[in-house]
Each structure stands twice: as structure tokens, then as C-alpha cells.
């Protein structure tokens, strides 16, 4: 029998702020344990939490960027449970009036893993619908030792967004594409650094399978503990296979929480779902409700940054870049800024120059950076110099082959292109007299090609052109030498 998977995600995202959600303690990753705490985030009796406006704004901004409806009236609720990482014995969260409702994330082709981009589903522009986005406080971090556990409250009370999807995801690859799109959108808007390895973006996956075509859902399992987007892909793939195998062998899936072990490539049972939790949500009496229609939504709309998909479209529209180039250049905000900086510095036809820059970045720069284990921030090539190089090629001063050599040198030394061109004696020969002498030599040495050309074989001209350029040691301007050859041959 054929089965299909039904997947929904719950994504927790740490919001980038200076201070915590309800107190002024510093919101910082990696500080010595328990150095960023105060009576509010330690849950002492009698304290008064006050919401951080910046965290509320960033959640509204996220909602706007993901096409959500922003709730007009929102509030915070207490979610009661006992756990050592929650000193108040309740977490301040949002229950029935979250900041954002609905919305969705469109999965672009290049958000899919490389090996899955050829699959037709990658080109389907599928919309994964969201149910809601709410704002809450994160809990403390626990460390587990042989016989004890240790708690660090630095993370307790830091702002955390929870993004919940509909069960619209049908494969590990779609889960991957959803998370990479979300991560790009959030990090580019500086809402969160959204690094899964640092726990800034954490994802729980609800997975079930059912016979293809069946309307009723199968029993779902929740998978936790993935710390990379490719880890999520592996975990989801494993879990789908496990569930299908279990059912095919006559077994039953029981509703349970499972932990992914990336090294072992397996999920393990964490706990079965005992009775449903009774969180006894109720409005937090310490916190006044919020109205988003008193300027908050309006001001966030004005501050809404260009999303990666908006930028991709703009690159295709304004610079006639193909979808692959546009997608790569828009996938990372720093790369986009770099590309646009180079483009501003380059002279010449916008579309032609943009394509040349895109080629340099995608075919050369990204490889060089990877090989040197560097990021764009380490890159020695100033956008102005990069732009200068592209202008030189556009103006015919050097060939594109020479430009590649200059580019590698610029990457290594950070020197200006004009300096390197001079040092290497690379100036392209455009002088007609000099070109004529190379052309004549090529014609004399290749009578067969000359005959072919005169017999109407146009390809023979290219062979002669290649010979002439070779004679010039690659310095002859390819376009001009072609013209000179034609002139001589037709004379």
C-alpha cells in the first residue's frame, strides 16, 4: 500500500533584543551561568513584569512579513506547570489572543535541499499555512550530570516567538524548505539570528502517516531535539519510514514523544502521552492587554523590510537575472548588500553588468570563500574594486579570462584591479596595427581554415580567431580581432 506523510511544525524562535521579555536583564547567549538574573526572571514573589516593546514589535513584524492577520486585541496568559526550568511554576505565554493569526510561508525552489531541487514539488511554490504566532518567555537552560541537574537562569524570561504551522507539510524536503525560508526571513529582518545550532531556532515536528487518499489522520508522534535544518530532514525521513514499516508489519503507532539522535540516525521513545496536560491558562493579572491598532501595526508596516522572495523578484525584474542567480543572491542579506554595492560601483549597462557580477559571485567568490573557510565579512575584495574590475571587462580593457585571474589575485591580496592589471602586464590589445599583425600571422599559418571560411564555413573564423588570440598570448581583444580577421579575409 502507498502511504503519505502529514507533518506540522512548532517552531520556537529567540527574538533578538537587548533585554529580556519582562525585565531589564541582558538577553545574551553564552554568558557565565546565572549572571543575567533579577527578582523578575527568577520568579520571586511580588515582582511586576513589564513587556518589552521591541519584542512585541518584532513579533508583529514577523507576522506582517509572513502575511498574518495581526490581532487587534492581544493579551498574555499564564500557562501553569511544574518544572525546574520555570521558577514561577507558570510560563507567561499567549493562549486565545495571540499577536498573529493565519499567514503562510511559500516554499521557493532553491529553499529545497540541492539534491531535491529537480523534483517537481520544488517548483510548485507550495504555501505552508500558519495557524498562529505568539510571544512568550523562554525557560532556563538545564545541564544534566551523573546524579544531578544544574540550572542556568540566564535564558529564563528571554523573548521567544512560537510559530505553529498547519499540517501542510508532506515530506522531509518540504520541512527543510520551510525552515530554511523562515530562517532567512527572520535573520534578514534582524528579528532573530535563528541559528539552530545555538538553539535560537528550535523545531518540534508532529508526524503521522496514512494510506494515500485517506481523509482521516493517522496517530501522530512528536519529534524533538533536532539541531540543524538538515537534521530535521533526516529525522522526519527516518520517522516516516519507521511509522510506515510499523503499520505495514501489522503494528500500531502510539501517540508519543520521540527524541532524535543525529549521530545514531534514529528516533527514540522519550515518553508516551499520558493524560493530556492541564495547563490551566488564565489571563496574567500582572500584564495589561495590548492593542495593536493604536499605531503599532501601522508603524511596523512602514518598517517592513524587503523579504528574500521580494528581493529575488526584484533582481529578476530589474536586472533580468535568471531565477537561480536571483535566488542565490537574495538568500543572504549580507550577500545581497554586497552584490548591490558592487553593482552601484560598476559602470556599464545595468543588466549586462549585473549578470557579470552574479557570475563572479556565484562561480568564483563563493567557492573562494568556502575554500579559505571565510565568510563575506572576511572578504578582502572591496565592492568598489569589484565594480571597477567588471567595468574594465565591460569596456573591453581586459578579457573575461584575464579578469578571472585578476579576481583571484584581488581575493588573495585585496589589491585594486588596476594595480594587478599593470603588474601582470595584462592590458588587452585593442590597437589595430598590432591586432592586424596577429591576424595576418594566423591567416598565413592556417590556409585550410582560410579556405573553409571562403567556402562559407563560418566556424572557421572562430578557429582563426582562437589562433590569433593565442599568438597574442591571450591579450588580443576578442571582438576587435574578429573584426580585423573578417576585414582581411574579405579584402
Amino acid at each position: 500500500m502507498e502511504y503519505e506523510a502529514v507533518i506540522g511544525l512548532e517552531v520556537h524562535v529567540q527574538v533578538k533584543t537587548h533585554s529580556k521579555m519582562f525585565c531589564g536583564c541582558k538577553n545574551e547567549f553564552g554568558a557565565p551561568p546565572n549572571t543575567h538574573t533579577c527578582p523578575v526572571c527568577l520568579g520571586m514573589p511580588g515582582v511586576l513584569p513589564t513587556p518589552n516593546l521591541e519584542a512585541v514589535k518584532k513579533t508583529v513584524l514577523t507576522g506582517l512579513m509572513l502575511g498574518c492577520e495581526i490581532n487587534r486585541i492581544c493579551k498574555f496568559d499564564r500557562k501553569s506547570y511544574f518544572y525546574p526550568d520555570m521558577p514561577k511554576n507558570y510560563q507567561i505565554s499567549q493562549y486565545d489572543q495571540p499577536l498573529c493569526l493565519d499567514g503562510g510561508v511559500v516554499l521557493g525552489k532553491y529553499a529545497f535541499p540541492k539534491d531535491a531541487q529537480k523534483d517537481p514539488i520544488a517548483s510548485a511554490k507550495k504555501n505552508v499555512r500558519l495557524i498562529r504566532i505568539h510571544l512568550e518567555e523562554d525557560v532556563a537552560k538545564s545541564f544534566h550530570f551523573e546524579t544531578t541537574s544544574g540550572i542556568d537562569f540566564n535564558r529564563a524570561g528571554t523573548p521567544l516567538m512560537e510559530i505553529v504551522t498547519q499540517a501542510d507539510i508532506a515530506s522531509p524536503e518540504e520541512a527543510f524548505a520551510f525552515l530554511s525560508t523562515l530562517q532567512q526571513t527572520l535573520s534578514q529582518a534582524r528579528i532573530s539570528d535563528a541559528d539552530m545550532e545555538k538553539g535560537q531556532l528550535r523545531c518540534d515536528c508532529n508526524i503521522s502517516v496514512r494510506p494515500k487518499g485517506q481523509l482521516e489522520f493517522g496517530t501522530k508522534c512528536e519529534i524533538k531535539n533536532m539541531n540543524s535544518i538538515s537534521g530535521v530532514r533526516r529525522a522526519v525521513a527516518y520517522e516516516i519510514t519507521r511509522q510506515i514499516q510499523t503499520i505495514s508489519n501489522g503494528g500500531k503507532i502510539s501517540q508519543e514523544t520521540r527524541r532524535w539522535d543525529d549521530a545514531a540516525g534514529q528516533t527514540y521513545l522519550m515518553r508516551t502521552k499520558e493524560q493530556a496536560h492541564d495547563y490551566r491558562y488564565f489571563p496574567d493579572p500582572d500584564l495589561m492587554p495590548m492593542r495593536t491598532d493604536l499605531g503599532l501595526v501601522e508603524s511596523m508596516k512602514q518598517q517592513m523590510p524587503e523579504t528574500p522572495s521580494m528581493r529575488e523578484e526584484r533582481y529578476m525584474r530589474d536586472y533580468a537575472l535568471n531565477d537561480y542567480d536571483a535566488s542565490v543572491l537574495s538568500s543572504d542579506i549580507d550577500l545581497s548588500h554586497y552584490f548591490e554595492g558592487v553593482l552601484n560601483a560598476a559602470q556599464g549597462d545595468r543588466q549586462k553588468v549585473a549578470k557579470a557580477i552574479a557570475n563572479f559571485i556565484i562561480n568564483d567568490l563563493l567557492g573562494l570563500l568556502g575554500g579559505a573557510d571565510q565568510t563575506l565579512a572576511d572578504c578582502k575584495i572591496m565592492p568598489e574594486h569589484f565594480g571597477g574590475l567588471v567595468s574594465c571587462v565591460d569596456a573591453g580593457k581586459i578579457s573575461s579570462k584575464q579578469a578571472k585571474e585578476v579576481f583571484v589575485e584581488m581575493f588573495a591580496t585585496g589589491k585594486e584591479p588596476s594595480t594587478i592589471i599593470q603588474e601582470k602586464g595584462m592590458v588587452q590589445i585593442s590597437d589595430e596595427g598590432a591586432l592586424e599583425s596577429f591576424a595576418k600571422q594566423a591567416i598565413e599559418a592556417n590556409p585550410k581554415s582560410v579556405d573553409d571560411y571562403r567556402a562559407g564555413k563560418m566556424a572557421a573564423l572562430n578557429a582563426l580567431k582562437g589562433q590569433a588570440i593565442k599568438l597574442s598570448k591571450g591579450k588580443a581583444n576578442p571582438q576587435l580581432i574578429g573584426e580585423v580577421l573578417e576585414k582581411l579575409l574579405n579584402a
Partner: protein
Amino acid sequence: MDVSYVAHLARLALSQDEITRFQSQLSGVLEHVGQMQKLDVEGIEPTAHASPVYNVFREDVELPSLPVEDALKNAPQQANNLIIMPKIVE
């Protein structure tokens, strides 16, 4: 409302006598509060607070935290600035 369930949620250990006693007390309290169910609230927007005050925020400004010694003062056990407790098993 079952008193032993509520007691479990609050992690309270009650004796059988207490359960019986509190069961009738809790029922009385719920019945008293339950009178509000009879009110006609047709057309009244639900609200979480009595006063019509919205948007009480603080700016995203960092303030000094407690010295770590103070933060750990109530911890029964500590090591390397962590609060130590019986092992949490998930």
C-alpha cells in the same frame, strides 16, 4: 470539580479526611462564584482586566542584574554558578 485532581495539579498531598472536608468547601466556593453564570452578558466584549488600560510597555533597555552570589543565595546546592537539583528525567 474533583479536589484530589486539583490537589495533584498544585502538588499538594492531602489526607482522605482533608479531601472530604475540602471537597465540600470547594463545591461551596464554586457554587458561589457560579452565580455569575446567570448574568446576561449578551453583547459585552470579554475583557481580561477591569480597567481600560492597554499597551503598558517598557523600552528595550538593559538594566543591571543581580550579582551572581545574590542570585544563588536561595539555592540549596550550587556548583560552578549553577543551581544544583535532583536529576531531572525526561
